[in-house]
Structure formats: structure tokens, C-alpha cells
């Protein structure tokens, strides 16, 4: 869309230029010939760009409508079921009166939070995310460092890069399904799955961070007569120490969200409570659970952001609590398919 917009801007500018060119025609004959040719070239390029933008829009539109048809998207359906959703909304947000004014009944949320010990469930989810991250770090370090072309010579580093690609190609939820024969449907299986996922994702981030290291300090360490492994650790890894910690904190945030979704397939923790209440159509209880999830994920993100800005050692803006809350639904949704 933005491509089309800029093309139209360019076109307008081109039209505006024309009268000015006509005025310069009063100059030398040969010079005006050159300008005419330049103008022709520019006009032709513009037309080709326009044509391309149109063609891309048509193809894009075609695929979009095909995709909608494929998923059976229908506005009629939304209208038909709207009353049902509306009544569910009433349950999601139970009403009470406060000083005579209608208000959301937080009391019924709190009642469920205490009744089902949702804070305990949230701690299980946090434990899954944290333990999974820590279990994944050694594998991520080994695969990530050996996957760098600067540590392992060219064709061989692809053994490790390839391993990480395969791990990443399989979503964490699917890893949990794969591990079911190992530990049943349990938080333990979910933690193993998160650990595996971390090796692929964090390892890849480590490899990318290593591409950024400078040659100078590596040569400096090499020239002291240090051996190969010492050169890798002191010359290379010491340069990426800070980014490694920052990436690990970032993966911890993602893993906490994945741990929530693990519950949806029966992996335990807070996500499991959400799944149970959904199947019982207890929408008020569902919303109470969602609130706890919200607090859990935002807290982990807040801590992670603080740690990251602290180790960077500079007082940067950082994410405000407000921004964390506004962007929460988007990140939550992303973690389900990542």
C-alpha cells in the first residue's frame, strides 16, 4: 500500500516539473534535446513503477480474498452469533453497583482467584518458563557458538545452524506433544518442551550476536599466544557478554507466555485453569484467570526490561508500565503460534 502511495506522490511531482522544463526549452537546442530525453526516461520509469504497483495490488488482493475464503470468513456469522457473544461478555464482566453506579464486579473475580489458588497456578507457570529457559541455556550456548562461522569453519557450522533451524521449525507446543510419551501431559513435559525451544531460538540469537564481534580484540588475544579456546572465550564471547544476557532475558519473557499457552493443551499451571473454565463455560472465572495471566506476564516483562537496561549500563527510556499493558494482547497472541 505504501508503495502505491509513494508512486502517486512521484507522479504528481513529475507533472509539476513539466512547465519548468518547457521554460528551459528556450535555451540551446542540443541542451533541450538532452532534457527531453531525460524527461522521457523519467516518465517511462514512473509508468513502469505505476504498472508494477498496480499488478502487485491485484495479486495481493487476490491472495487475501482466497485466504478469507479458505478460512470460511463470514460477516454474516459474526452478526448471527453476536447476541451469544454479548451474553458471554456479560459473564466476562459481571456487574455490580458501587455507590449506586454500575461497576465491574471485581469481588467475584477475587473470589475465584482465592478459591482456585490462581496465584499458586501462576507460580507453576512462572516456574515452567524459568526452568525451561535455564535448561535451554547450555544447549543454546553450545549450538549458538559452534554455529558461528567464526568459530566453526564454513561448511561444518551448518551442522549446528541446521540443528537449530529444525528445533525452531517445530513450535514449542508441538514439542510438548512430542514429549508426552516421556512425562505424560504435565508441567514437566511442558518445561522440557520450553527448554528445547530455547536451544533453537536463543542459540540462533547467540549466533547472530557473534556475527557482530570485531576482529581487533580477537587478534589482540591471539597475539598474546593464547590457545584457540581461550581466544574464542576472551576475544569473542567477552564482546557479546552483554547482548547474551539481554537476549536470555528476552527469551525468558517469551517462555513465560509460552508456558501459559502450554496449559491450554493440559500442561498445567494457569493456562490449564483457563482451559478448564472455558470448557465449563464459566466466563467470569475465565476473565479472573486472564487478569492473573496479565499481571504475571507484565511483571516478568517489567523485571526483564529493568535488568536489560541495567546491564546496558545506560539510563535509557525503557518500557513504561503503561506501554507494557497496552502492547500486552499483541505479544500474548504472538506467543501462541511462535
Amino acid at each position, binding site marked *: 500500500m505504501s508503495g502505491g502511495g509513494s508512486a502517486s506522490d512521484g507522479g504528481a511531482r513529475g507533472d509539476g516539473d513539466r512547465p519548468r522544463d518547457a521554460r528551459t526549452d528556450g535555451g540551446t537546442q542540443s541542451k533541450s534535446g538532452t532534457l527531453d530525453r531525460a524527461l522521457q526516461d523519467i516518465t517511462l520509469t514512473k509508468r513502469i513503477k505505476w504498472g508494477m504497483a498496480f499488478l502487485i495490488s491485484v495479486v495481493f488482493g487476490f491472495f487475501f480474498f482466497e485466504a478469507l475464503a479458505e478460512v470460511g470468513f463470514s460477516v454474516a456469522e459474526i452478526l448471527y452469533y453476536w447476541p451469544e457473544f454479548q451474553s458471554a461478555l456479560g459473564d466476562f464482566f459481571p456487574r455490580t453497583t458501587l455507590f449506586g453506579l454500575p461497576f465491574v464486579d471485581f469481588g467475584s473475580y477475587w473470589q475465584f482467584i482465592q478459591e482456585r489458588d490462581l496465584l499458586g497456578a501462576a507460580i507453576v507457570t512462572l516456574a515452567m518458563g524459568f526452568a525451561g529457559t535455564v535448561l535451554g541455556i547450555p544447549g543454546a550456548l553450545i549450538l549458538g557458538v559452534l554455529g558461528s562461522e567464526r568459530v566453526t569453519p564454513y561448511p561444518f557450522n551448518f551442522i549446528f545452524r541446521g540443528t537449530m533451524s529444525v528445533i525452531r521449525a517445530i513450535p514449542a507446543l508441538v514439542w510438548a506433544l512430542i514429549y508426552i510419551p516421556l512425562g505424560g501431559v504435565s508441567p514437566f513435559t511442558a518445561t522440557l518442551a520450553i527448554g528445547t525451544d530455547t536451544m533453537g531460538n536463543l542459540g540462533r540469537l547467540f549466533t547472530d550476536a557473534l556475527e557482530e564481534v*570485531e576482529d*581487533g*580484540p580477537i*587478534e*589482540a*588475544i*591471539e*597475539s*598474546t*599466544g*593464547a*590457545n584457540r*579456546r*581461550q581466544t574464542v*572465550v*576472551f576475544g569473542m564471547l*567477552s*564482546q557479546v*557478554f*552483554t547482548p547474551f544476557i539481554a537476549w536470555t532475558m528476552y527469551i525468558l519473557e517469551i517462555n513465560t507466555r509460552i508456558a501459559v499457552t502450554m496449559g491450554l493443551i493440559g500442561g498445567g499451571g494457569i493456562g490449564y485453569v483457563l482451559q478448564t473454565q472455558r470448557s465449563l463455560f464459566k466466563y467470569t472465572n475465565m476473565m479472573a484467570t486472564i487478569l492473573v495471566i496479565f499481571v504475571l506476564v507484565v511483571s516478568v516483562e517489567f523485571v526483564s526490561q529493568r535488568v536489560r537496561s541495567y546491564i546496558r549500563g545506560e539510563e535509557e527510556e525503557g518500557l513504561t508500565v503503561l506501554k507494557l499493558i497496552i502492547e500486552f494482547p499483541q505479544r500474548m497472541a504472538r506467543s501462541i503460534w511462535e
Partner: protein
Amino acid sequence: MSTIEVRNLTKAFGDVRALDDVSFTIEDGEFAVLLGQSGAGKSTLLRCLNGLTKPTSGEIRIDGEPVNGPRDDVAMIFQQHYVLGQLSAYGNALTGALNRTSFFRSLVGWHSESDKYEALRALETVGLLDQASQRTRSMSGGQQQRVGIARALVQGPNLLLADEPVASLDPASAETVMGYIRTAAAERDLSTLASLHQVNLAREFGERFLALRDGKLVFDGYREDLTVDVIDRIYGDVQTADIREGTEVSA
């Protein structure tokens, strides 16, 4: 102390000869300065001496032993100092001792008592003992370069190489850093070869001078032989020619 013997050293990068049949000998304990304009081959020569670059042909012997790769008795100071910003001045100085520390011990920072003292002594030599635990990232350019010198000293070398050690420093820091290099070399009886492009600094600090131009050794002598004519031969006319042609002079 070390004797450097360079015989018919040539290094080609594709068609370009960065070093062309260079031969010289530096005796034990000499403080030699390598002159030449940018691109004359100074860095290439130092990198060959250090074993970071393999020569195309010719031979380098240090104390009779041929150079095949980086070795612990040859230390190098780099123009961009290349210290590890993450570590303290002390931690950086200790990386000079990596060659005599096992991988595991270096990983957990379990250095021998003598190496710890050696690192502190080196920091004292370059006047940074009070800033030993400061992170090098937060230090000035001159201080970082002094940390680089301390690292080279902890290595316990016989030969100290310095590749434009003061080129990215302001004139006052350049004087200070060159002073520290000379003091360190004198205290520890090191043979030194430092490349410089500032002729005034070179004259102030050097005893022995080598000069490269387009990869060839064009001068080899002592201070009294380094006349204005010689300096003109190394730099002068080329610079004026460059200015005449309107090309940029890199110096």
C-alpha cells in the same frame, strides 16, 4: 631481549606487493621506530613479525627461531588498542597471561599469584594502578591504550611490537603513551619496534629507524643519519605530488 632477523621478506595481496624484499636486523634491546606513510607496509611488516599474517616469501627469525604464528615471547600493541571493554583494566592486563594459564583456570579467573602481581606491576608501569578495577569501556582513549601496553607487558615478551600506538590519540596523550612504552621497554630490557607516522615523535623517542615506502625498505639507520633529506625521501615529495594532483593525503 631479542634479536630480529628479517630476510628477503615479501608479502603480496593479489597483485599488490605490500612488502617487497625487505631485509634488516634489529639487535638485542634496541628501540626501533618504523616510519613510512599510510599504506607503505608498516602494519603488514608488524603483523608478519607477530605471526598474524603469513609472508608470501622470505624468512623472519626471532632469537634464531622462525616465526610461524602468534607466539608468547612477542607482544603487540594495536592502534585501536583492542582491549576488552567488558573487563576491568586488571582483567585486561591478565589476558596477557593466557598463554601460561590452562583453559579451565583462565575461564574461572583462577590465576597464579605471580601473574596477579605481574598484572598489577604492569598497571603500575603505565600509571593505572589506581584505576585497576575500573571498566576499560569507561576509560579515555589514552588510558585504554595504556591498558593495552599493560597487557603486552604481562605477556612477559622479549620483543614488543607497536602498530601506530598513538595514531588515534591527541598530541599530549600521544607523548604520554610513547613515554610509557619507552619506560616499559627500558625497565624490562625489551627490544621494541614501533611504527609511527609523526616524524617529530619518532625523532624524540627512537634510537634506530627503519623506513618503508611502497613496501620497500628505503632507510635503515640511527638518529644522526635521519636528516631532513632522508625524511623528504620517505614522505616529502610524494605528499606534495599528491597535493598537486588534488588527491587526498592520508596522514
